């Protein structure tokens, strides 16, 4: 055998070994890991209109909702619109740690993208429908400071809004203030339902894995692939950030703290459940269109001592576009979020709480991989 032939054989052996290594690295050799990855798709998921909102999925109602969303006249002094804290150019957040309406707020403005999918709305889940969640900030004195009467008066008195209302509802604006304000809130929800995220590099990888498409699998960056393995494996992240939307939609304590300042705390879910149950606009009340058949979660949700200081598990889709992070916005970057989970102070977790969060003790490389994975959840459209 010549030296050249030997060299060719050696090169072929190296190529085979590299190829096998790449497949094992990129293609998830472990069937259990593959199964865990596949559960994060497919995306987008089917969606059906909200049975509690007869305007849900209606394009004419969405047009009215779009107009209302951008209208600062919904606020008491005409200075704050829904779009003030949910800016289209900032992925429907405001980019601030904590939002400010008429007064400084205590919480970060969550993105509205994919909001149509949630069971609970807001960091504390104080609303059980998107339309009720849309009405809440309008009436909150610290956010928009409006009123039912003012909102109804605006829709009734403004020719453009009244015209959009007629197109959506097929009738003139109602004389009853509350009924008209609820219609306006349902139109706001119909608009926000249109804010849906598209497919991401992760989705192409995940679907390639499901279909055995080696090209799609190998196109996924190696660092994101390693980060994904951490996410569904040792990191235990997918216990809460589960399913295609990367969230359970429920509430957890991840050790970020609930003290706002000396003497003031954010009770989180504990307060959210109390406000939900007290609201006349919840799914058990008279203003929904589901007749109570859509209210199972509201009927059964339990108020428990451990709810204090719990906050909603956010979706991670497009998380790279929604900085800063956590309910109080105190973590400025994804790197800071990963560092938090790497070094989380277990003393800050409530005693007796679920043993979900442990310091991951990530190496620098592992932390970077996890961030790369999170960035791969960014969808193609802006």
């Amino acid at each position: 055998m010549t030296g050249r032939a030997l060299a060719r054989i050696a090169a072929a052996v190296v190529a085979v070994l590299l190829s096998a290594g790449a497949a094992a690295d990129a293609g998830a050799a472990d069937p259990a890991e593959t199964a865990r990855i596949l559960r994060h798709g497919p995306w987008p998921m089917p969606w059906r209109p909200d049975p509690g909102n007869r305007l849900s999925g209606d394009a004419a109602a969405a047009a009215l909702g779009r107009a209302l969303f951008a209208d600062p006249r919904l606020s008491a002094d005409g200075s704050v619109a829904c779009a003030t804290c949910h800016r289209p150019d900032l992925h429907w957040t405001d980019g601030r740690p904590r939002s400010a309406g008429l007064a400084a707020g205590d919480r970060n403005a969550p993105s509205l993208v994919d909001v149509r999918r949630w069971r609970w709305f807001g960091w504390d889940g104080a609303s059980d429908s998107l339309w009720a969640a849309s009405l809440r900030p309008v009436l909150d004195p610290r956010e928009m400071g409006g009123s039912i009467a003012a909102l109804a008066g605006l829709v009734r008195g403004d020719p453009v809004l009244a015209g959009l209302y007629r197109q959506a509802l097929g009738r003139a604006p109602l004389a009853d203030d509350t009924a008209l304000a609820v219609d306006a809130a349902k139109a706001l929800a119909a608009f926000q339902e249109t804010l849906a995220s598209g497919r991401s590099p992760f989705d192409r990888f995940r679907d390639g894995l499901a279909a055995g498409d080696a090209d799609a699998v190998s196109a996924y960056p190696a660092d994101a692939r390693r980060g994904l393995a951490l996410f569904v494996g040792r990191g235990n992240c997918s216990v809460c950030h589960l399913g295609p939307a990367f969230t359970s939609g429920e509430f957890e304590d991840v050790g970020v703290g609930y003290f706002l300042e000396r003497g003031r705390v954010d009770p989180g879910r504990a307060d959210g459940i109390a406000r939900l149950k007290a609201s006349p606009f919840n799914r058990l009340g008279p203003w929904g269109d589901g007749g109570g058949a859509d209210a199972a979660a509201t009927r059964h949700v339990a108020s428990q001592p451990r709810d204090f200081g719990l906050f909603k598990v956010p979706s991670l889709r497009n998380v790279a576009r929604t900085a800063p992070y956590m309910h109080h916005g105190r973590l400025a970057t994804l790197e800071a979020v990963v560092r938090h989970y790497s070094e989380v102070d277990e003393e800050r977790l409530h005693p007796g709480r679920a043993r979900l969060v442990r310091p991951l003790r990530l190496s620098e490389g592992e932390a970077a991989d996890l961030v790369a994975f999170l960035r791969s959840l960014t969808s193609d459209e802006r």
Partner: protein
Amino acid sequence: MSWRAAGAAALLALLPGPALATGCGSEFGAADVRRIVRPQYTLAYRPEPAELETDQLFALRVVLCGRDGGPVPLLVRVGAWMPDHGHGMNYATILTAEGDGYWRIDGMMFHMPGRWELVFDVGTPLRTDRLVAEEEVE
């Protein structure tokens, strides 16, 4: 469950059970029924829908059968616990007595993937036996 419901159910406890323990809950279907057997009675249940999914509300159909058609205990409480994480459900169940030892449990949700323990307290409101069954959701 309200005390009124418990009182109504207590009357049921005096009645003979619906079936022999060996066939308890056979109407739930052989593929879906789960049974917990005790010397004096059997508890059989089936989730609805039968395929449990993480983060979805579901119901349980439950029947208690006395040995040899003997009396059956009450179903007092039903809940679930995730032993590896040290927490229960975020939702409270509502128990509805359907008569003849049959119950419907609404408001169940396993909001995380993993191993859960279904906990059935049977007996009387003052003295209960705890029956535990394991379920796994992905």
